[in-house]
């Protein structure tokens, strides 16, 4: 009985992996994609490859503090999306200024820089005593989307 439970739990785990995202060892990733990635992010470490649909999703870290990154490549080696965890000080001054004026009195947290092709957007959480927001803004600091949290 115990073995049966263990077995079903294991198979469930693998099944769910297959359904959502599938871990892939780097040696199984086409060379073209690997090489492009390595050229793009030369200082990446703790690299984990996943198949996300027909794309390759790479989770990795950079820097001494271990900033989290996620990058998506097509199977031909085109970078389609790059999500980078950044600190408040890394935000462009215009963006920071804009947000601070729009959302006065809010704490800025969990900032992500999202690059898709040539467009750059920033995603962040804003927290106050009364209200939390999740917002996305463009490279000028203009809010594109706003969700109450």
């Amino acid at each position: 009985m115990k073995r049966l439970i263990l077995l079903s739990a294991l198979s469930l785990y693998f099944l769910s992996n297959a359904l959502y995202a599938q871990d892939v060892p780097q040696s199984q990733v086409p060379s073209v994609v690997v090489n492009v990635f390595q050229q793009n992010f030369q200082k990446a470490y703790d690299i984990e490859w996943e198949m996300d649909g027909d794309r390759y999703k790479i989770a990795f870290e950079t820097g001494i503090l271990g900033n989290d990154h996620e990058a998506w490549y097509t199977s031909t080696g085109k970078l389609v999306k790059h999500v980078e965890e950044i600190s408040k000080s890394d935000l462009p001054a215009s963006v920071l200024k804009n947000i601070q004026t729009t959302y006065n009195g809010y704490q800025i947290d969990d900032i992500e820089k999202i690059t898709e092709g040539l467009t750059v957007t920033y995603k962040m959480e804003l927290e106050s005593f009364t209200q939390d927001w999740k917002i996305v803004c463009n490279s000028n600091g203009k809010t594109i989307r706003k969700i109450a949290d």
Partner: protein
Amino acid sequence: MKLANKSLLYLSVSLFVIIGLWSVVFYFNIQYEIKESVDEGLENYKRQIIYRAEKDPSILDKTNFEEGFFAFKPLSAKEALHFKDRYLDTFMYMQDADDTELELEPVRMLTTAFESNGRFYQLKIINSMVEEDDLVGELLEEALALYFILMASIILINNVVLQRVWKPFYSFLHQLKKYRIGHTEEFPTVNTHTKEFVALQKAVHTLLEQNNKTYEQQKKFIGNASHELQTPLAIMTNKLELLLENSSLQPNQAESIAEIMQLVDRLVRLNKSLLLLSKIENKQFLNNQTVSVNEIVRQNLSDLEELAEYKNITISVIENTELTFFMDHAMANIIIGNLIRNALFHNVTNGNISITLYENQLEIRNSGKPEALLSEKIFSRFYKSEPNSAGIGLGLAIIKAICELYAISIEYHFEKQQHLFRLRFK
């Protein structure tokens, strides 16, 4: 084989196996590590080369390894997109620093594919590997060196430590070897607190005590038995003598009695000898004095003069020195007298005896049977060189017992067809 050597043998064999197995595991481990590190290096090269190709596309024309460790090859998009990084062990003609000409050397090759300015290329990078032969050779040498160093240190430790640890044992063994039941007063002792040796000592002491007790009882028994036999034997002898004097005997009756008498005589002699032996062993002769061996030899020869004449035996005496010894006179007479009598009785007609006195040494040589006696047996009790002889086989045993009592060494040799008995007075 010595205990230390035995354990050394086991150690050497098991160490050989252990180090051998360890070497194999170590070899594969090292090889894996080397590959790992080479692969890592290849990957780094790959990044740098692709980076350079991006900056300087001219290097993309390099399609062979002639000038470097990498080569490009254009690929179709289809081929390229399905291509995955491959690491391969292979061989290439190369010239190492230690080679005079091109040689087939083992290399690790990384094959990858990449895109540059919309075109696809295949990139091969090589890195020379450690030659497996070299690695194996080196490792074997190291393993052997390790083995020998280990063995040498173990032998050294064995010699120093084990010899020290076993020293009380060997000293004990030495004492035990010298131990003579009934002669050695003190029991052998082991000078250590080592549990095993102390237990050994205890066991040996128990054994020796039992043996000594048995020996004492045996000695006493022989003494008592032969003593108790004296009177009945006296009665028998005298009764038979009186019977034979009776003139009314028939000749055949008398002959039977004569035969019985001879047997009784033998019994008497046997009993006397046993009593003498028992007395020697009980050290009942303590009237020790300085006796002149020369004097005793002369006295005995004078007593036996007519007998020697009868057998026509030439006796020569060479007195190199005046030999004296501190012992009981009667005992000295028994040893020397019996040896001379033996030399006479076991001689051949027209034979010879030569007696030589040296410093602390007496030699009695005689002609006789042309073959050696069994030197390891002649001194044991009841041994007779001629099984049918009327002798009782105790003569030399008694001599030996007296010699042991006075720490005189006695040897028998058969040299130049002569029987030689040598006494060394220490």
